[in-house]
């Protein structure tokens, strides 16, 4: 558990950040320049807060009041940099063992062979970093950080310098980490697709401050946070379990607290936990239950809130069996339906609108 409350001034930029990161993946999301990297540099000891306190599992790393400021090497954290930063003069094995060798044998919590297997770098051990592909370099860098038996793993946009193919190759590895090694991860990113895929907890950063923090599903369904979660990303994220596939029709059934969702067939196995992104523009609202309609998902719901968004749009948040669902309708539609909070309605979602890219496997 990382607990941090710091202030730092960088030129004209004032940072004032309070956050906590528990088990699982905590994503630090915000525009470039919002201070995300500075936060993890302060955790790692590479940047010094002007005042405040940082602790991991109760161990104080920095405290301006009692004058504690541990050197980076005393903090026992793993740091995966955006640019892999592998040591060019060492082989892959040398890089992997670099941090491990500094940890007393009794305190090593991460097994070398497990890391090599999970990250799939076994065939690269004797190579030099210069001979690796971008994705391989970053995998080795992750392994190197893990093998230092860190109390928390800090990742600074580890996929940002990779093309989309390499990114897709690396995402499953990262999503497997938190589960396989039981190490909390603080993941800095400005790419929403990565965050949706990986994060359990979301911390939204804006201009050096934490604008909001909480479970990913909750924050993503909050229209009030839309300026921060991204204009084109507008939509809810729903956690569900794969209940079955209907190969004949190319669809999969997912169950979630609000009912069953029919989506385009996913490659996730039955029983897998998944996260579905439902774009706010792809949901329609009907007051009467529609009959003889092509839309496959008709879910009973209750209106939680209705807020105008700009001149012609209205944001409506529905509760589908307790799961928030964000819907965007036109102001014209709202003029005719007069939706009010507390109303019982039906949410209509076409199965086709939830395709493979919107259904992501969640580890564990």
């Amino acid at each position, binding site marked *: 558990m990382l607990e941090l409350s710091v202030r730092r001034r960088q030129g004209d930029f004032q940072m004032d950040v309070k956050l906590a990161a528990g088990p699982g993946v905590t994503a630090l999301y915000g525009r470039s320049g919002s201070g995300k990297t500075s936060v993890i540099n302060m955790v*790692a*000891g*590479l940047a010094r807060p002007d005042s405040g306190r940082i602790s991991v599992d109760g161990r104080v790393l920095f405290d301006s009041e009692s004058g504690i400021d541990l*050197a*980076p*090497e005393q*903090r*026992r*954290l*793993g*740091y995966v*940099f955006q*640019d892999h*930063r*592998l*040591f*060019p*003069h060492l082989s892959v094995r040398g890089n992997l063992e*670099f*941090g491990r060798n*500094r*940890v007393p044998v009794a305190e090593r919590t991460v097994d070398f062979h497990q890391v090599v297997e999970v990250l799939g770098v076994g065939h690269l051990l004797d190579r*030099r*970093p*210069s001979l690796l592909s971008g994705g391989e370099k970053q995998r080795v860098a992750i392994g*190197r*950080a893990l093998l*230092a038996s860190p109390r928390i793993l800090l990742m600074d946009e580890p996929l940002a310098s990779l093309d989309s193919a390499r990114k897709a190759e690396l995402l499953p590895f990262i999503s497997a980490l938190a589960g396989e090694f039981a190490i909390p991860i603080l993941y800095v990113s400005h790419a929403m697709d990565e965050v949706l895929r990986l994060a359990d907890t979301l911390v939204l950063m804006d201009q050096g401050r934490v604008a909001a923090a909480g479970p990913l599903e909750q924050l993503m369904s909050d229209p009030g946070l839309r300026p921060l979660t991204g204009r084109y990303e507008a939509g809810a994220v729903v956690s569900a379990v794969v209940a079955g596939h209907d190969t004949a029709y190319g669809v999969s059934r997912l169950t979630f607290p609000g009912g069953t969702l029919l989506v385009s067939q996913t490659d996730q196995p039955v029983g897998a936990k998944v996260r579905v992104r439902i774009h706010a523009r792809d949901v329609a609202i009907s007051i009467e239950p529609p009959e003889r309609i092509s839309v496959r998902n008709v879910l009973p719901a209750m209106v939680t809130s209705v807020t105008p968004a700009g001149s012609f749009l209205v944001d409506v948040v529905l509760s589908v069996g307790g799961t928030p669902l964000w819907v965007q309708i036109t102001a014209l539609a709202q003029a005719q339906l007069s939706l009010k909070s507390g109303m019982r309605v039906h949410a209509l979602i076409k199965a086709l609108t939830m395709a493979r890219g919107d259904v992501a496997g969640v580890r564990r």
Partner: protein
Amino acid sequence: MFGLTPLETEALRLSLLVSGWAVAGSLPLGLACAWLLARRDFPGKTVVDGLIHLPLVLPPVVVGYALLVTFGRRGVIGGWLYDWFGITVAFTWKGAAIASAVIAFPLLVRAIRLSLEGVDRGLEQAARTLGCGPVRTFFTVTLPLVMPGVITGVILAFARSLSEFGATITFVSNIPGETQTLPIALYALTQVPGGDEAALRLCVISVVVAFAALTVSELLSRRVQARLRA
């Protein structure tokens, strides 16, 4: 040895001994100075930088005379060395090594400093987060990365030491078997009638030694560069 006369063998041996010790002895200090100049800001940095580079622009005779004054038996440092350790450096090969070291020092520092300035500090930060203190980081990451610069500096300094004449002859004079290195032996031969042929032979030996040093350095730095290519 290869048909060399005793005088030539002795001069060659002395040259290699003096240059070897000059470089080996000044390397740790050279690394420290290069690191200070590349990485630290401190008051008087310009002065220190100037002092280190001074032998590059001063006439070597001036350096030799300054050494004689400070390292002579009655000099500030020379007297102290003699009183406490019974060491005399003036008019010995050790003095010749000191003279060569001082003259070649700027070349050594310069090459290492340039190389240090080119090291990605991010790699050092990575080493720190992986549990290495500053000293261990220097020896396990920084030093291997500046190896090409160190090799260049060492070879440059070695070559400069081999050719050292002015400061050496001023400080430790021309004593056969003690301070008579290749250039000094060569100079001595040109001062006596009929020494032309022997002087020419020394010329050839000097060229061969210098060429060998350059070749070795080229091969070494190629190998190191190949290992470091990121």
